[in-house]
């Protein structure tokens, strides 16, 4: 189980998709805070800041969700960079893409993604997906201890 105070970091350049995810998050009644950033670069900066803070102000994210197609640093590049950061090698990362490009799927797993999900067509389906995510990733999955400073 992921401690309820540990946030989930979600990177997506679409303001609409960030809004939809927030809605689904709320509807699914997930206690963990959802931290939103607008691209891969911002996600890396968020993690570096969490490293510097060493969890003093906010706890470091326990799970990361990355969109694939983003400006500056796309999801796959961000995934590669995060896996290269010493303290973030073990954090579960889920990819959430709008298309099932076979090349993207293979590459994501190669780079160390833990799951590859397709953005559903409707809010209801996203609520269903987030519900399943809540049970599997937040309730039943065990996590490594918080990255030590």
């Amino acid at each position: 189980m992921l401690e309820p105070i540990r946030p989930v970091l979600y990177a997506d350049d679409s303001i609409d998709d960030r809004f939809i995810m927030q809605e689904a998050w709320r509807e699914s009644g997930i206690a963990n805070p959802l931290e939103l950033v607008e691209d891969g670069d911002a996600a890396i900066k968020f993690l570096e800041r969490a490293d510097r803070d060493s969890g003093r102000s906010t706890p470091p994210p326990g799970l990361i969700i990355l969109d694939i197609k983003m400006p500056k640093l796309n999801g796959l590049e961000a995934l590669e960079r995060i896996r290269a950061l010493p303290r973030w090698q073990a954090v579960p990362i889920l990819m959430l893409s709008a298309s099932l490009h076979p090349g993207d799927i293979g590459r994501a797993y190669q780079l160390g993604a833990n799951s590859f999900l397709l953005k559903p067509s409707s809010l209801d389906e996203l609520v269903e997906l987030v519900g399943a995510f809540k049970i599997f990733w937040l309730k039943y999955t065990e996590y490594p201890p918080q990255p030590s400073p």
Partner: protein
Amino acid sequence: MGICTFVQFFARDGLAETHFLIYVPAVVAAGIYGGFGPGVLATLLSAVASTLVTASIPYSTARMPSRMLAPTIVFLAVGLAISYFDYLLHQSVRALRQSEQRFRLLIEGVRDHAIFLLNPNGVIMSWNASARRITGYRADEILGKDVSVFFSSADRDTGKPTRILETARRTGNATDEGWRLRKDGSRFWAESSVTAITDDLGAVVGFAKVTRDLTERRLKEEAVKKLLAEFEAFSYTVSHDLRAPLRALQAYASVVLKREQARLEPSSAELLRRVSMSAIRMDRLIQDLLTYGRLSRQDYKMYEVDLDSIVTHVIEYYAGLEGADILVHRPLGRVRGQDSLLTQIVSNLLVNAVKFVPKGRRPRVDIRVDREHRDRALLIVEDNGMGIPAEHLSKIFEPFVRLGPANDDSGTGIGLAIVKKAAERMGSNVRVESEVGKGSRFMIELPSC
């Protein structure tokens, strides 16, 4: 024995007493160089000359006509025989030369195929015009060189030229496709076949190599591949960017519907619901189109597939099948096919079967496998739906063909096109029988395991 006696007689009793012997080389020479006619002429002239010469020798017993007759007859017979054998020799040499020339013309005349011989060590021993045209080497530049000159240094480093010859030595033949080098250093795509040439005892005495220049075809293939990759990347980008606003449209309409439920007029709520449903329908359409495109382009390998588990998976996970009676005549058994293609077929047929049913009728679907032929399995999906009019049966497998009006509950019009494409990619096809008002029966023939 007979030959010995003849030679003895010819040497001792015949020619020894005459001068015939000295005329034999002349007959042989005339036969070899002139053929049968000149040989016979030389024989006759020699016989006359010898008779005259012998007759002019005083006191010789050989002058006596009784002693002259037998040697002359023998000489004439021998002369004729020599002329005839010379004629045969002449003919066979000429035939051999002609055959050699024809063969050389054939090899020289072959266009687009370099044909040449290698010795057992891979040294080039012969060369033809196409070989010169393809590689740029003249015969005098290449004869005696090792065949590895055509290979890139990377290929030479990995020992590819030797490996090909070794395979040919071991198995009799080796084929290969790859980039090779011309004299000027440019590359050509070669399809080559090396055949070992063996002597009567089976020892390899050399190799015959035939190489075809397929550069143009290869470049075209690469261009098509590049174009396909670009198209694929383009279609994913388009789908990605088309889907984003649709998801937003759907989500905002949904959120307003949920949050403002109490304050919304029922008619406004209905309009918002339609916005939401339209967005979902278009999103499904984009995804179906992508699936259809992917089915055409992707490479699929066939293997043994368990139909029971595929049908179970589809019934378990596909939305919209809950309100139907789906009867599966298990065991459906195993077939040679491909998981994802069969999943596409079964899911699209089931979703259609459940969706297109007259109002008030509970959907019922029968799934079974007919194994009348030992090596073929006929997968049958039968429904009690509204059926398809006979005049439409031929076009229902084309994309974007929809028989009913387009509304929220209708399909995208691509479902059956996906079924057909998926069947085709497994080397199969899909057939349908239908009766309006009663239902349809879809059949897909697959190889048994």
